[in-house]
């Protein structure tokens, strides 16, 4: 598998399908695990790191899942490739920028990835388009069981799975849902909604930031605690909050339509107009307008653009993706020009230009 092949396909989490996918981009579950025979990462020697990567690679090779996965040596990747995997959310910033032996095991459909030698020896993550946390957990549980049959995890009865940071100890589980909430941002309700959520111990954060709205109006909610409740209870805790957020966002969209359908129609159409005609455009500006277009499509105000296309453009217009797609390195100025070209190519009103 070449990374270039990934560039042209749609990640699981960008598909724009699954329950509530007009508002919920993706469901994501991650587990932190450590191998008992090694110290945690901060006390690992370069030799330990190599030995961890080797044991994981060997364990993987003896499992059926190895047939369909790719073991990528991250230490051997160049800057651009590492940034590219980060933009696709297949590896973290920590894994990308740390030193020494480290790896990622990739599912070619990007439904899961396993990071080796991140903050913990293993970080397993499962991604699912739309709101489907239960399915994501089922898949995660199986993945974890397979690895566990070949590796000895650090575990004790009292504190569960032992992790490098005490914030992850116990289940090692992080359940998160990524939501697109442009109407709550536009009606300035977002802070109020999140203040209410914080009281029930769910963490919320702007995925690309929300202060300036230049970041696509994406938010991620996730569990804050990992010890003392079982995995399904933690999944349920996050799951419970989502319908409320969806409901708030739908009401805010309704409000915007009722207040002035014409203004809203004008606003989203102008956003599309800029994306279709700009000659150079930054990544922040792109996200800002793509967010409006996404809401416009979901409200039926824009009819000739498809949601999977918009989802894909959020990722494809990121710096490393643009450079991968055009095949060479680009300066910031050249990227802004290339980005404008790319947007025009995929948003101009010709259906044959839809990316599939």
């Amino acid at each position, binding site marked *: 598998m070449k990374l270039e092949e990934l560039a042209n396909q749609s990640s699981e989490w960008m598909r724009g399908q699954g329950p509530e996918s007009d508002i919920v981009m993706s469901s994501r579950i991650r587990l932190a695990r450590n191998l*008992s*025979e090694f*110290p*945690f*990462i*901060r*006390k690992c020697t370069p030799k330990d790191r190599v030995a961890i990567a080797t044991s994981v690679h060997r364990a993987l090779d003896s499992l059926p899942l190895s047939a369909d996965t790719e073991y990528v040596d991250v230490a051997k990747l160049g800057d651009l490739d590492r940034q590219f995997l*980060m933009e696709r959310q297949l590896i*973290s*910033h*920590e894994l990308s920028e740390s030193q020494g032996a480290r790896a990622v095991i990739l599912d070619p459909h990007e439904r899961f990835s396993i990071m080796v030698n991140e*903050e913990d020896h293993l970080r397993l993550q499962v991604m699912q388009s739309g709101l489907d946390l239960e399915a994501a957990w089922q898949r995660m549980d199986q993945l974890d069981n397979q690895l*566990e*049959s070949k590796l*000895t*995890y*650090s*575990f004790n*009865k*009292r*504190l*569960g799975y*032992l992790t*490098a*940071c*005490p*914030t*992850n*100890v*116990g*289940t090692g*589980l*992080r359940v*998160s849902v990524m939501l697109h909430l442009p109407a709550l941002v536009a009606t300035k309700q977002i*802070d109020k909604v*999140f*203040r209410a959520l*914080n009281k029930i111990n769910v*963490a919320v*954060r*702007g995925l*690309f*930031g*929300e*202060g*300036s709205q230049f*970041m696509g109006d994406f938010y*991620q909610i*996730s*569990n*804050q*605690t990992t*010890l*003392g*409740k*079982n*995995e399904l*209870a933690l999944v349920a805790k996050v799951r419970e909050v989502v319908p409320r957020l969806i409901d708030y966002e739908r009401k805010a969209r309704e409000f915007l339509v009722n207040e002035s359908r014409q203004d809203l129609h004008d606003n989203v159409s102008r956003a599309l107009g800029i994306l279709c005609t700009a000659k150079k455009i930054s*990544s*922040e500006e792109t996200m800002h307008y793509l967010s409006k277009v996404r809401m416009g499509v979901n409200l039926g105000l824009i009819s000739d653009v498809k949601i999977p296309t918009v989802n894909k453009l959020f990722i494809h217009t990121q710096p490393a993706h643009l450079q991968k797609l055009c095949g060479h390195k680009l300066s910031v100025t050249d990227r802004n020009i290339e980005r404008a070209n790319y947007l025009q190519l995929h948003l101009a009103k010709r259906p044959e230009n839809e990316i599939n």
Partner: protein
Amino acid sequence: MKCQHCEKPATFHITELTEPSGPSVLHLCEEHARTFLSNEGTATPASALSSMLAKQLKIKNAAEELATADKKTCPICGITFADFRKGGRLGCAYDYIAFEDDLQPLLVNIHGSLQHVGKEPSNQTGSPERQHRIMQLKLEMKEAIEKEDYETASRLRDKISEVESGNESSWDNDALEDLGDDFQSDPPIV
């Protein structure tokens, strides 16, 4: 406006909603915003963790006691409690045992619990108590060899392989029960 971490202009303005002190706004350049946002989104940053810890220790203890806690050292990986407080990351699984008293209030604060509920690995030979036990036995064996007490050394060698293979009969459970005594009362709700 400049980025909080460098001289570049701040183009990202991120409201951090998870801080216990209420929402706070961060002004960052694109690069630092990416670093910040890709940091998984939810893990408490190491700095926040250590300040939480510092606050807690201040409430609970005098400076003197903090100094005592800071000097505690893990017999397996060698980090001190002070090392952990600075970086927010532990050095090995045994730190949860070695720094147990000092980590307890922190765990209660973060999770409101001190008892794991949920999934368990089918292979439970990876407990830090076992690692520690093996290390101790190896030390004892080395001492026995130095004293040329080969009978004891060979007994210890058998014991070690027993523990390593996970077949040791009674030790693990007894030790866990001993350790479990501290955790019988319900943890306070935070």
